[in-house]
């Protein structure tokens, strides 16, 4: 495998412009096992493009080159009492990467953690970017302010495009103030009851920034003795305390305060995912309307699972996974969609939710608009895209 490792945007332009065969795009390479396999013999590794080029804490906005380690960004933001609103976890450990992801990779894979429930996903925090398309042409989109409707909202398209459209070289994201945090825990053995409680809290005006449930199996992996539902509240200290008290009094009488260090660790685990499941399992992520969460679990009967976003996002682990088509069909029946995160034995290539014919054709035309020669990560999301 040949590896191109540009240090500048110009070198990225050159590498793509001169490419005569498909390129595998990667940031720091932690999630190369996520998505379909790309057949190519050259890797374009963007980890050499590093550095935060702009950070204005009072504007809560920063720009970083695509290969900048996520950890470096989190550290810089934390030094100013801020953080990334979408709370990306370190998914790479699912495939035993013992180092952290890049900001470009995190956004390209739309990695979003438990705060996604309240603050939005990666796509909601990417304000602008510069990139190089499949023809080696540099362009920019979006801007550096939150409120911006000038031209098409290409940042939305960039988040979750898995490098199939263009190579992002620099990203501008918003940060959020890191508030005081309170955690509540509800001991719950019954999944249906736990999911119901999360939906009730989600409907309440107490603004939780995390609503997750660890059933007994996932809880055991993170040293929690019983199934537990966690509620996170963030903001002004007095306000958070008042919300916690009122929430407990009115709708969750079984909720108990959880020690802050324990809460923080469990939410980090919830963002990273890997600590929750046995390494040998096949792992799917399924988005459904929260009311369909329980039906999804009973229908697919995984070995273990974890519910994020009040049951709107389910992680299902299988020792022996049902066939991908079975899972995709079940997700569709339940008004959602599934993505294969970690392939087990008998790996399938049906990683992303199947598209209907019209959407598939449109997706192919969008691919062509950015990358007509199919140079960038061809087949990473869909076979012919």
């Amino acid at each position, binding site marked *: 495998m040949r590896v191109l490792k540009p240090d500048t945007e110009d070198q990225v332009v050159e590498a793509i412009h001169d490419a005569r065969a498909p390129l595998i795009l990667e940031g720091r390479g932690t999630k190369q096992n996520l998505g379909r396999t790309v057949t190519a013999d050259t890797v374009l590794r963007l980890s050499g493009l590093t550095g935060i080029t702009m950070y204005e804490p009072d504007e809560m906005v920063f720009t970083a080159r695509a290969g900048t380690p996520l950890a470096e960004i989190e550290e810089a933001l934390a030094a100013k009492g801020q953080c990334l609103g979408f709370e990306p976890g370190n998914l790479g450990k699912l495939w035993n990467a013992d180092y952290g992801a890049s900001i470009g990779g995190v956004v390209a894979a739309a990695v979003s953690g438990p705060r996604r429930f309240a603050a939005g996903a990666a796509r909601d925090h990417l304000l602008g970017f510069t990139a190089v398309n499949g023809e080696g042409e540099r362009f920019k989109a979006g801007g550096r302010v939150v409120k911006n409707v000038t031209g098409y909202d290409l940042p939305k398209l960039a988040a979750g495009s898995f490098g199939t459209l263009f190579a992002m070289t620099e990203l501008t994201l918003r940060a959020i103030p890191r508030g005081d945090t309170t955690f509540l825990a509800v001991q719950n053995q019954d999944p249906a009851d736990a999911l119901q409680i999360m939906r009730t809290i989600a409907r309440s005006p107490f603004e939780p920034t995390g609503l997750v449930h660890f059933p007994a199996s996932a809880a055991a992996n993170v040293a929690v003795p019983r199934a537990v539902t966690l509620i996170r509240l963030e903001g002004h200290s007095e306000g958070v305390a*008042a919300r916690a008290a009122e929430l407990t009094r009115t709708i969750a009488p079984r909720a108990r305060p959880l020690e802050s260090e324990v809460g923080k660790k469990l939410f980090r685990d919830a963002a990273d995912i890997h600590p929750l499941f046995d390494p040998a399992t096949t792992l799917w992520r399924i988005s459904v309307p929260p009311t369909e969460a329980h039906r999804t679990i009973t229908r697919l009967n995984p070995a273990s699972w974890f519910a994020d976003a009040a049951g*709107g996002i389910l992680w299902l682990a299988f020792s022996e996974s049902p066939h991908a088509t079975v899972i995709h069909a079940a997700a569709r029946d339940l008004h959602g969609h599934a993505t294969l995160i970690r392939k087990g034995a008998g790996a399938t290539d049906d990683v992303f939710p199947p*598209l209907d014919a019209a959407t598939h054709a449109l997706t192919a*035309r969008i691919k062509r608009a950015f990358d007509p020669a199919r140079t960038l990560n061809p087949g990473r999301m869909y076979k012919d895209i």
Partner: protein
Amino acid sequence: MRMPELDQGILSRRATLVDALRRLVPDGVVADDDALVAYDSDALTAYRQKPLAVVLPKSADEVSAVLRFCSANKVKVVPRGAGTSLSGGALPVGDGVLLGLSRMNKILQIDLENRCAVVQPGVTNLGITRAVERDGFYYAPDPSSQVACTIGGNVAENSGGIHCLKYGLTTNNLMGVEFAMLDGNRVRFGGKALDPGGLDLLGLVTGSEGLLGVVTEVTVRLRPKPPCAKALLIAFPSIEQAGACVADVIAAGIVPAAMEIMDRFAVDAVEAYCAPGYPREAAAILIAEVDGMDIEVDAATKQIDAIAYRNGALTCESSTSDSDRDRIWLGRKAAFAAAGRIAPDMLCMDGTIPRRALPRVLSRIAEMSTEFALPVANVFHAGDGNLHPLIMFDVMKEGDLDRAEKFGAEILKLCVEVGGVLTGEHGVGVEKRDLMPLMFSEQDLAVQGAVKCAFDPDALMNPGKVFPALSACVEGGAMHVHQGRMPFANLPRL
């Protein structure tokens, strides 16, 4: 404003085309010359043009049928919700169908358990909140036209509003759309589940200003209403100090639901119009709203109060009841109408800038007002850095419109110069179309043009909007932008 040249072939076949459209949408075609006047502009009234015909479908199937027909016959299509666009997004073209979605106005499903509602595109923005407020929910984005504007139009424009400081724009409050493509196919992007499957096409079509297709159904996120909300009314001796206060509040980590500034000109106008009782000695007032639990609202109120006085505030009062809060907002919400009383015509600019540039940009706008000899009122979403300078002029006075447009363009140039953008929530439309090169290079625009081609290879959807010039899509889906080299016909101006 130059618009694409009229297709004489289409114009000559008008009667035949109208007959065919009548068969597709019985009782839903307006072609009478006098009746078409009602549709000849949106809220950017400086530009007027009667469409070839207006078609008012009642169902998604009718929308598909009309699009299929128009596509097959190479007839242009301009979608329209309530026609409240301030950027000319729904300005008709003379050789195109104006596709009005206002009759598709049913709320299809309210699903409180999943915190969402499924509605047709012609439902008004406020109509959604009205339908769920008795259950303690609301739909957060609140453009000032929310009584009239439709959710379909909101999706097309990615509309904002006063409360998007805390709750985001339309795009952050959408879960899914059904989208009719030009070939009549309808596709679903998103739904009641989080995150897209595949590329985020929901995010792409939101804010695409009717250039990619037509929204036929929308699933919106509903939010529980905060238990308590308070408004603060703060008076400042200068608009720069008001701007500095806003920047300091945000920098302190407080996230108010809204922060709005009005200058003295705007305050005087609303006092004459509806007398909300704003402090008259102020050069600028800041209205901040905080929401949440009582205790955190009180805490945030105290913090903002302290920051305001540190920035030289003259007075700072907080609302004592919900009706008092309504009183404080009354003037802000009436500002555009009030300004309309003072001058016969207005241009409302919409640039967004980094908050720290507020003082500099505001003083420069004041200087430019003298240079261009046109009064300007400033009423804007200060928390987001989203400016709304209202340039006042009289279209009947020789040269006024031209000067007003040049003034507006200068303001937007300044916005881009300080790191901002041309439009924060009103859209590019026709109004800012020719200013796009201020922000985007030819290559940047070519990439956006290529996206357009992926949806609409014949450039039939909402032509003449957003892009300074479009030429036909070439093989492979790319688009070449030849600025100023396309043959254009002049559009009559009022």
